[in-house]
């Protein structure tokens, strides 16, 4: 029983095994994300009713919320991958960590941008120091830190470890940053701007949003697996299996 479990685990350490399996998974993830995101976005943009308070600008939610979800989840995915790499010295895991960093930064940027553009018609300004926006901005900085640090090392091995340590310290920090920013915001929030007015969501808005969130998850893993594939090939460039596939 136990040995079976470890067999499964050790196969994950094999780049070749990953490469073969992921070539089956990625097309399915692509189809899944196109279907889910496609339906969700068209439904949200064209068929869902208008929000009573915010008008049509609320339709940005169908991108904003899924991107924000994955920006945060992506940091934990990156940190867990780094931790697995540190503990079991698994190369593939470090590769996953390196791949997750720019992808997470991209999603954080998208959630910040869509949030800013949504803010203009809703609050009358592109940028407010709202608790969630500020936390997202700091999350963006944390991602940049991991990217810059891992890339600064010429030796891949050292960059892997440094990035993993930083990502782990960051995971301890994220909830604290969220709490502190939340507290700070309650202290300074101007009375004129009400930031808590999340649209009162009707089922006709919830379903497309749910589809978009699921679709964004599929799309995230599609992009992540693809990025890992390239990095795996690069790492094993002198191995026989890479020469065979090319």
């Amino acid at each position: 029983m136990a040995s079976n479990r470890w067999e499964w685990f050790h196969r994950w350490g094999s780049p070749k095994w990953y490469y073969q399996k992921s070539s089956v998974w990625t097309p399915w993830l692509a189809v899944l994300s196109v279907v889910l995101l496609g339906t969700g976005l068209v439904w949200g943009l064209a068929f869902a009713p208008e929000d009573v308070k915010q008008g049509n600008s609320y339709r940005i939610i169908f991108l904003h919320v899924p991107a924000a979800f994955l920006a945060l989840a992506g940091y934990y995915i990156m940190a867990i991958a780094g931790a697995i790499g540190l503990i079991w010295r698994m190369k593939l895991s470090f590769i996953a960590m390196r791949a997750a960093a720019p992808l997470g930064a991209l999603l954080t940027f998208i959630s910040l941008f869509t949030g800013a553009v949504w803010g203009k018609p809703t609050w009358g300004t592109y940028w407010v120091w709202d608790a969630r926006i500020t936390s997202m901005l700091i999350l963006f900085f944390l991602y940049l830190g991991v990217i810059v640090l891992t890339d600064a090392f010429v030796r891949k091995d050292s960059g892997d470890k440094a990035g993993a340590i930083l990502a782990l310290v960051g995971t301890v920090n994220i909830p604290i940053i969220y709490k502190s920013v939340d507290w700070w915001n309650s202290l300074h929030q101007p009375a004129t701007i009400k930031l808590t007015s999340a649209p009162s969501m009707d089922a006709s808005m919830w379903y497309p949003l749910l589809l978009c969130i699921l679709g964004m998850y599929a799309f995230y893993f599609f992009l992540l697996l693809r990025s890992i594939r390239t990095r795996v090939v690069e790492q094993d460039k002198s191995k026989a299996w890479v020469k065979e596939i090319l």
Partner: protein
Amino acid sequence: MTIWHYFLRDLKLYFRNASELTTPLIFFLIAIAMFPLGVSPESALLRPISFGLVWVVALFCMQFSLDTLYRDDFSSGALEQLVQHEVPLAVIAISRTLVYWVCFGVPIAIMAPVLGLMLAMESSGFGVLSLTLLVGTMGMASIGAIGSALTVSLKKGSVVMTLIVLPMFVPFLIFGSGAVNAAITGANVSPPLTALVGITVLALSICPPAIAASIKMSVENG
């Protein structure tokens, strides 16, 4: 050799190099003096932002000389010997973090009310300003030491270090200056102050293993 021995030895080393010790503190003073020149000399404008400015500049000061923590030991090869030493790296890391705090954190906390005075800060906040900086600089020193250990083997490590360390200082800044704000406005100081102490204790407890792992990585990188 006990942790106390390391602490004293490192402290002596810092005090031998007086200019390294005073530069960040001079920076603290000069940077604060820039704000009235850039914003306005009017106390009505400076007063509400005074303690915030002092806290922000103190935060920059704390990461200003983080390089001094491990840089010399790394280039001389002493760090490599520390890794093989019988005393756990984590113990040495904690002692050095404390030395760093004594050399930079404590003077910053003492200087802060004077700079606050220059920015027309309300005197009722002076005590809390000093106290929060005394506690907060300890936490920032711990986090900063991780950043320093991570980047010590890099040629342009200090730029990278600034980038990775500053975002992690955010909670200290928020609770620190928040507590001063509470003291001045007459609100309850204890919630932000307790939070500040809490995150400082947390930072102190997670930093030894993280620093030890980072130093091992840096020595391997050579």
